[in-house]
């Protein structure tokens, strides 16, 4: 990857994260994937060296850097061979804590953020539901305010969440839930509220079930069931009815991080494929001499580089918008969605070609490219599908009529 445009700090981030990740080899990740075991040693090592606080305020023990640096960190993690599994093990700690840092009360911030940064607690993000994926506004999970017998205010949560990554190992969840019925409010978005809730698996009304999945098996993804699960009222982040607005704020940042994770996977696969193409001899010459091998890899490289420019452009816009009012949220949304789309597609191309370059060996776990190939579907699907991005660009940029 060309690193020409990166700042000195970003290059230091890349170098330091790369060094740390060398302690977690491909054998480590292969074993985690094979046995579906959480990479807690990796999470602890990153926490110990302060990386989880990269984009959190210095006041709470973070380092106060931007989404650009966080994106490069996620890319470097993924590129080290850790892939999407490694990235997902820490992703929510870096990203889902942003709304808390911005909109949480002083008590919420000082109670939760230092513990997340230090690795004592882990965070998961509870938005998607079986009946509400991208149509978030239709979600059904309800949080109802009640007073318990001791006159203490509580929220009682009922409903179901799905695809909640790291719910099995997390102590806190950023939960989006309905505090009003859809009809009760002027705009449907005003019916949702954001909570930072403790996950007490021994308490009544909370159950989770791990989903068996195609890739990234080291990290758990879950169905989470709430049935009258009670949490203290001070778990509410911001005001009631502001949840959707708060969540939207962080979505562009998440697109950037995901784009970075996809890029890392693509570059890792491409590096592996070109090494193999240089070393593997068939008919007494390296297979990389064949243009049928070389050209698809060269093409994959250019796609990754282009997607990289789009990704760090979006991240720069996001960071600059904090001090530059001329940058609109729409402009950031368009850049961040485009970046996520391009990076996911470039990663898919690179990963697929890496498997094919390896021939039969590409199908063997030992060569890692099959693991990355399985994982590279994640950024294509999440956090928003390719098709919804195309809809968004069609509507926002090209001013085409909305189809749904």
């Amino acid at each position, binding site marked *: 990857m060309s690193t020409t445009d990166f700042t000195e*700090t970003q290059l*230091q*981030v890349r*170098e*330091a994260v790369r*060094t*740390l990740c060398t302690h977690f080899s491909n054998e480590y990740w292969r074993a985690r994937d094979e046995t579906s075991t959480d990479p807690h040693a990796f999470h602890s090592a990153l926490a*110990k*060296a*302060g*990386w989880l*606080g*990269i984009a959190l305020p210095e006041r709470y*023990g973070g*380092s106060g*850097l931007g989404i650009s640096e966080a994106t490069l960190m996620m890319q470097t993690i993924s590129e080290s061979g850790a892939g999407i599994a490694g990235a997902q093990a820490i992703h929510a700690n870096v990203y889902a804590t942003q709304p808390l840092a911005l909109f949480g009360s002083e008590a919420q911030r000082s109670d939760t953020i230092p513990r997340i940064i230090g690795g004592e607690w882990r965070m998961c993000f509870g938005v998607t539901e079986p009946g509400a994926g991208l149509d978030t506004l239709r979600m059904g999970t309800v949080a109802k305010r009640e007073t318990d017998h001791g006159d203490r205010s509580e929220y009682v949560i009922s409903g179901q969440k799905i695809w909640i990554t790291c719910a099995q190992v997390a102590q806190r969840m950023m939960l989006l839930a309905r505090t009003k019925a859809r009809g009760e409010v002027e705009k449907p978005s005003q019916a949702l509220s954001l909570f930072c809730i403790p996950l007490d698996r021994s308490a009544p009304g909370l159950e989770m079930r791990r989903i068996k999945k195609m890739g990234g098996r080291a990290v758990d993804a879950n169905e989470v069931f709430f049935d009258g699960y009670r949490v203290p009222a001070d778990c509410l982040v911001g005001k009631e009815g502001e949840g959707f607005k708060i969540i939207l704020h962080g979505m562009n940042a998440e697109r950037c991080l995901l784009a970075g994770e996809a890029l890392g996977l693509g570059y890792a696969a491409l590096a592996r494929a070109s090494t193999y193409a240089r070393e593997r001899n068939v008919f007494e010459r390296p297979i990389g001499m064949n243009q049928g091998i070389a050209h698809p890899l060269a093409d994959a490289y250019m796609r990754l580089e282009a997607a990289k420019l789009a990704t760090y452009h979006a991240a720069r816009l996001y960071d600059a918008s904090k001090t530059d009012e001329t940058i609109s949220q729409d402009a950031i949304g368009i850049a961040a969605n485009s970046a996520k789309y391009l990076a996911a597609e470039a990663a898919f191309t690179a990963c697929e070609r890496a498997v094919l370059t390896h021939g039969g060996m590409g199908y063997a776990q030992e060569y890692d490219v099959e693991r990355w190939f399985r994982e590279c579907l994640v950024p294509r699907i999440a956090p928003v599908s390719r098709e919804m991005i195309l809809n968004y660009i069609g509507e926002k940029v090209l001013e085409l009529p909305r189809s749904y």
Partner: protein
Amino acid sequence: MSGLRILVPVKRVIDYAVKPRVNRAQTGVETANVKHSMNPFDELSIEESVRIREKKAHHAHAPPVEEIVAFSAGVPKSQDIIRTAMAMGADRGIHVVVDEKDALEPLGVAKLLKKVVEQENSNLVILGKQAIDDDAGQTGQMLAGLLNWAQATQASKVSITDQTTVEVVQEVDGGVQTIRSKLPMVITTDLRLNEPRYASLPNIMKAKKKVLDKKSLADYGIEESGVRLKTVKVCEPPPRKGGVKVEDVDGMIGKLKELGAL
């Protein structure tokens, strides 16, 4: 003695994981677009200095550390490794900018370091036993000679036992050897001395605020780099010849005899 003023010279070298390639003109190895990092032995030096400050490992009785200064003489990019050294715990850095074509030889470095030691009033110099690029392994010894200080080379364990006494364990053929000396002294580090920490993000950020002085050889009263050696030619080692397969033990003994190895 009031406190320790430690000088840690560090060198920017081609990363240990990179396989160096001889350049086309056969005058050296290719350095353009090749990943560089801190000489691994120098990381050990920084780590040990920081442990002395933290009174970790064998340094419970060490006098307080007044200052740890990281120093490098080399191309402008050498400042990257000084920053790394500061992120690991050095308090400030000095960078003497030297062009690649004027690269210093060990004696030149030692003479320069002598001036630095005098100017910084250092009383302990900890440096790598060798740099992994030219593998000269001379600088520490020459520096001790020029300063007329004690030296303990290839340290695998360092214990500061009281205010002025240092014990150093060296690995020698067939065992270990412990030597004791008084400060000021020069110590060179060997691989098993410690396990260097990685730079944490908060410390990387702190290192940005630390002072890194940029200097020239002339600032230390050195007019020219004093290069005495001329590299005649650099070439790759000859490729390994393929071996032969033998059927059994007798076959192997026969083959070894045939080759004159037995």
